[in-house]
């Protein structure tokens, strides 16, 4: 019954084998384009292609469904609020004092929502096909200081441990008749015994952890080696080049020719 909060889905697809830095670049580039564009069919297309890629890599529909369910409250909120606050557009549908709902606004809501979803699922492509070690390693290779990368690794490693700890503390305190029912402030106050006991155990563990690191020669005055290092192979370079090329083309089209500008038609 362990919760790992791990988005990674083990597999050997071509996306899995791709260097994580290339995947990160993809996320950055696609996000830039998605932010520049404001076009419903394009966003839908990106979503469809992203889903195809994810399923092809072994990510189950169930997992995709979980992300949709998590995003849904935000998507609905965006879709509803956008028409109310974005008042541009010429096809007015409703006017009520300061409120002005237009057809463009109404369409813009779901469009913005889907933009958000498209970016989220693009991030998922990166995270679902990159295991935690490769992820941290890619950050370090891109310039993150090693010690920070180590903190990140340890943080990730201990997430399931702390989740289990919190659960155990919660059960122990409930067994002492701590009532967790109730709402709002009452419930928040009831969480205090759980938080304190969890925190103390966490602090104890952290001290031990520091000792373990030192006992494994962390910080020894030698140049550190790495068992598995990331290395860009020809397919990685090829894809990198393709991504950059595609990005430049689309970027220029967007700026010069207004690609993705209007709501419903690319041109």
């Amino acid at each position, binding site marked *: 019954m*362990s919760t*790992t909060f791990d988005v990674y889905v083990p597999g050997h697809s071509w996306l899995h084998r791709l260097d994580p830095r290339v995947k990160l670049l993809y996320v950055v580039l696609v996000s830039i384009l998605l932010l520049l564009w404001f076009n419903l069919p394009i966003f839908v297309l990106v979503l469809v292609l992203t889903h195809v890629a994810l399923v092809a890599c072994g990510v189950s529909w169930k997992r995709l469904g979980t992300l949709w369910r998590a995003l849904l409250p935000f998507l609905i909120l965006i879709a509803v609020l956008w028409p109310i606050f974005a008042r541009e557009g010429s096809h007015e549908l409703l006017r009520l004092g300061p409120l002005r709902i237009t057809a463009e606004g109404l369409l813009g809501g779901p469009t913005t929502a889907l933009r958000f979803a498209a970016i989220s699922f693009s991030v998922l492509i990166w995270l679902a096909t990159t*295991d*935690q*070690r490769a992820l941290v390693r890619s950050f370090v290779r891109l310039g993150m200081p090693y010690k920070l990368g180590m903190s990140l*690794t*340890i943080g*990730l*490693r201990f997430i*399931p*441990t702390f989740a*289990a700890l919190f659960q155990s503390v919660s059960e122990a305190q409930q067994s002492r008749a701590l009532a967790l029912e109730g709402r709002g402030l009452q419930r928040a106050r009831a969480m205090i015994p759980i938080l304190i006991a969890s925190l103390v155990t966490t602090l104890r*563990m952290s001290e*031990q*952890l*520091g*000792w*373990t*690191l*030192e*006992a*494994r*020669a*962390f*910080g*020894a*005055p*030698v*140049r*550190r*080696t*790495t*068992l*598995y*290092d990331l290395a860009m192979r020809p397919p990685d370079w090829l894809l990198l080049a393709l991504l950059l090329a595609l990005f430049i083309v689309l970027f220029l089209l967007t700026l010069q020719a207004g690609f993705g500008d209007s709501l419903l038609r690319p041109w």
Partner: protein
Amino acid sequence: MNQANDEAGCLISIRDFVYRYAPVTEGEAPVTALDGISLEIAAGEFLGITGTTGSGKSTLCLALNGLVPQATGGSIGGDVLIGDWNTKRVKVPELATRVGLVFQDPESNLVGLSVEDEIAFGPENLGVPPSEIAERIDWALALVGMSNERQRSANQLSGGQKQRVAIAAVLAMRPEVLVLDEPTAQLDPLGKVEVAAAIEAMRREFGSRLTVVMVEQDAELLAQFADRVVVLDAGGIVMQGTPHAIFARVAELERLGVAVPQLAEVAQRLNSELGTDFDFLTHDEALRALRPHLRSALDD
């Protein structure tokens, strides 16, 4: 910096070692954890240490690799020498090339995202070339019987498995001394058996090339592995000798609150009831000693 494994092992020398933890609250007196310990540990020896909680066992473990006093502060007297390295002066990461330490909490021993990463971590810190790291991982995993769990993450392992990975991770650094601080204290019986098997395998692999210091409250484990047992009480050594010699002194140990193997208890009780001279610790020893006795009572 990393001593070759085939060089003669080192001698650990503890001389009048005193350690006081800094008081937790202002105005309180510092707590004396170790009160003048003197102990010599020969190269290749398997030393067992036992005592109740608060007797200073854990502090002694931490003193062997320099965490006491370097990471714990407090005040110190006397010396702990690993060969000619003084644990007050040589930094902990450097001492780690000669002394490895496994803690009793399986969670705190693991810092990596997978078993493989865990075992690689120490050698990586020491600058060992990647190809050699890979060999050491294969070797260490095989030694503790975890070769199939290479890619598992820490939270997927049982307690016994976690401790075995911790032992493998430390051995991969090729230390001359391995310190185990109650390695089975938090494990269920299956975990204890697994760790005992790993220690056995380690014994067979290294023989006298590895010096082991093991703190344990599980008297059966000490009886199984230790050449010599030291009993601590209130920061001082109160008894030392072979496991047989120590665990025969059941009454004294019980008075100190130290766990005694159940069969040692049986032997002593029989001796006081029947005036016999039994000295067994393990199941097989007990069978060998009792069968003739019962049969001779039978043949009349």
